[in-house]
């Protein structure tokens, strides 16, 4: 009986999986052919007689504000224009990686538009795994004509895998997400750093001043999150070497040598004095008490501590600084005059953002890929829809003054307005400047950064990690074991500890991985 049963079960299971397998392939092949036949008719001839719901999947927590009300309004307009409505499918931040990938792995047509990113949301692995629909140029031209026209051909090239477009890039939106330290201008001046903190030596002086003069303030009440550890390590690298981070290789241990020699992989982690130097400096900082003794397990929220005047610094990117921390600190710690120290600025090593940092994809089993594209085209390019979706209702949630967006008095984004988390197609031609951001500061620094910045040099390569996946796993593990200790100066003998780290990397096949990365770079860019 047991045997028959197990056979029965296996068949049931087989059917359930086989069924979804074939369905996927069908839709993948159907969609382009459908587009081919209708493209002849042109955009005007598109059949939208059937009302459809387009499900848009994004990361973010379900909002408690007026999103539903604004969406109702938005859907009225969408129905009018393309006979479709939009439903947001939230992947909540809690375990978002698991849920995001599970949802893509078990598609059943309940998702159409997928917000994705090549650096923080596995856009390429998911394209390789068959989660996204390949988008033919006809398809894009027909159903997302404005977007297609807006994205330059060379940018479409950066969205291709195996010759097919999988992602629609957010390439007309300027943002600075380079990391660095937010520090208090008032303390810096008191410390005698008149022009603000612009290198690691200034930062040390700044921290030491706080340590000496403000016993109740932790110079940097850091929390050893994986991301903070990585940013610190990379930040030192960028500030002290001309290295450039190569994305898409799981852990930030692969750097191109320099902007002039980008396709040689740096051996920063294997040899040279800079890493040792870093470890020794951080050991000094730790011993000086710039962070808490138990920093590796610290549970304090650094930013909140900074708002409360209990931490002298916080580490994040430029955007966070001018949009959030600076305005908030002006309110909570008047006169704090929070400035930004950008990693890499001391030796002009700044890379501008990769255009697939935010991108939209179509789910491979979407039932309405054409209409999904039409909706996306409007969300990105139609002024009325764009502003509804980004800011809420004009007159209720905001008013416009020139290119400034003004919120009504007492407006709280958590309670009012809309949260659409549409980070996959923002458009500078339609953007408004939110009046509560620190634009003066932004306008002061970003031209300087822009001057230094060079474009991300590896946009065209999508690495095949298969040949080195085991090595990468082990490297990832070694990095996350050793790096927190190095970054927060917790080893007794930093030089010896760095050597141990380097030996472990070598044993894990790091050199093999470097060679593989170099050869894949060479095959794309020539040697």
């Amino acid at each position, binding site marked *: 009986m047991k045997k028959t049963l197990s056979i029965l079960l296996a068949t049931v299971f087989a059917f359930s999986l086989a069924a979804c397998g074939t369905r996927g392939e069908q839709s993948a092949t159907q969609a382009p052919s459908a587009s081919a036949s209708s493209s002849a008719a042109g955009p005007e001839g598109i059949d939208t007689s059937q009302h459809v719901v387009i499900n848009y999947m994004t990361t973010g927590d379900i909002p*408690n504000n007026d999103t539903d009300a604004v969406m109702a309004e938005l859907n009225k307009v969408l129905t009018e224009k393309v006979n479709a409505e939009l439903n*947001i499918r939230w992947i*909540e931040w809690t375990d978002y990686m698991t849920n995001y990938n599970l949802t893509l792995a078990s598609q059943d047509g309940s998702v159409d538009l997928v917000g994705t990113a090549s650096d*923080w949301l596995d856009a390429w692995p998911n394209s390789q795994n068959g989660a996204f629909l390949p988008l033919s140029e006809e398809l894009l031209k027909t159903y997302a004509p404005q977007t297609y026209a807006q994205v330059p051909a060379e940018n479409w090239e950066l969205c291709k895998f195996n010759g097919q477009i999988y992602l629609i890039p957010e390439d007309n939106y300027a943002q600075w*997400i380079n990391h660095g330290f937010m520090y208090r201008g008032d303390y810096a001046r008191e410390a005698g750093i008149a022009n603000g903190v612009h290198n690691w030596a200034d930062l040390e002086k700044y921290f030491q001043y706080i340590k000496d003069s403000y016993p109740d303030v932790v110079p940097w009440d850091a929390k050893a999150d994986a991301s903070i550890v990585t940013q610190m390590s990379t930040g030192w690298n960028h500030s002290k070497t001309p290295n450039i981070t190569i994305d898409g290789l799981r852990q930030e241990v692969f750097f191109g040598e320099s902007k002039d020699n980008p396709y040689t992989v740096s051996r920063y982690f294997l040899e040279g004095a800079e890493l040792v130097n870093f470890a020794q400096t951080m050991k000094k900082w730790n011993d000086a008490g710039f962070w808490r003794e138990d920093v590796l397990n610290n549970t304090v929220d650094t930013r909140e*501590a900074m708002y409360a005047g209990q931490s002298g610094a916080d580490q994040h990117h430029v955007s966070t600084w001018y949009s959030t921390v600076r305005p908030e600190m002006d309110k909570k710690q008047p006169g704090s005059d929070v400035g930004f120290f950008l990693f890499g600025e001391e030796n002009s090593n700044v890379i501008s953002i990769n255009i697939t940092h935010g991108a939209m994809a179509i789910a491979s089993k979407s039932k309405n890929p054409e209409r999904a594209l039409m909706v996306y085209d409007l969300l990105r390019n139609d002024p009325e829809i764009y502003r509804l979706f980004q800011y809420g209702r004009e007159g209720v949630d905001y008013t416009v003054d020139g290119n400034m967006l003004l919120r009504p008095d007492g407006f709280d984004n958590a309670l009012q307005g809309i949260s659409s988390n549409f980070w996959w197609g923002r458009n500078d031609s339609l953007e408004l400047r939110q009046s509560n951001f620190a634009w003066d500061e932004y306008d002061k620094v970003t031209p300087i950064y822009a001057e230094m910045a060079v474009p991300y040099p590896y946009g065209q390569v999508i690495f095949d990690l298969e040949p080195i996946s085991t090595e990468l796993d082990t490297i990832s593990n070694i990095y996350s074991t050793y790096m927190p200790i190095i970054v927060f100066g917790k080893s007794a003998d930093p030089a010896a500890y760095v050597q141990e780290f380097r030996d472990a990397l070598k044993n894990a096949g790091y050199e093999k991985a470097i060679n593989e990365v170099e050869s894949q770079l060479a095959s794309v860019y020539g040697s």
Partner: protein
Amino acid sequence: MKKNKIGLDRTDFIIRGVTYAIGSIGALACVIPFLLILASSFSSEDAIRRTGFTIWPADFSTYSYSLILRTPKQLVGAYIVTILLTLIGTAVGLFIVAMTGYALQRADFPFRNAIMFFIYFSSLFSAGLVPFYIVMTQAYHLRDSYLAILIPLLMNPWLIVLMKNFAKSVPHEITESGKIDGAGDFAIFTRLIVPMLTPALATIGLFIAIGYWNEWYYSSLFLTSNVEYRPLQYQLYRVINQIAALRNTVAGSVVTITNIPAETLKMATAVLATGPIILFYPFVQKYFVAGVTVGAVKG
């Protein structure tokens, strides 16, 4: 438990002393952290960051509670969902577990070992996340359905074995006497066995109920944002994890969070999610009464 006064000697008193001492220390060890949680849920965020946890609220504040209660609909909905799931799941699960446990301990039941192995084996090998997820969503179509939480938690092999073990303590003569009276196996179970197993049923019911009450995992997998009300512990789990997740990973996006009192909010949510258990537990304790099981036959 009533104790006869006879036979108390020195060792009894020593044991008694030790028991009270250990019991009190254990209870204190459990209650103090809870007081810390309670006190910090009523403290201001700044104070917590400055001084850590205190046994008495530092800088009394109800801000985090007001933040949670700002959208009472969610909270009330979460309570209702959790309570309904717990009640229905416990009733159905307990019935099946008790029935199976009784059948499997019957020495005269020839298939009992095979069935037991079949059940037990499932606890050793699990298919893993993806196959389970795919089967649940694509074969059973349980995405966004409360059944996706209700069903998996109904029972587990451990509870069935436990029940089987408890049922063994019921003398076989009871089953025999039932048979002589001409009752069928099911009637014997419902009329004769169930009444004698109150403590066992209370125990197992409690385990099932706790499983439902503490559940967040299946909710996080199967209840997408299309579902308006999610179970209580899942809400708690979200609050506790989302702030960290936000800071942690969204390297590049502008996410504005206004004034979330991270620590105190976590504590307040914990208080709201655990509180009802304190009220519920004594109610179950009532059924942990000795002697019900065997008294009936031996007379």
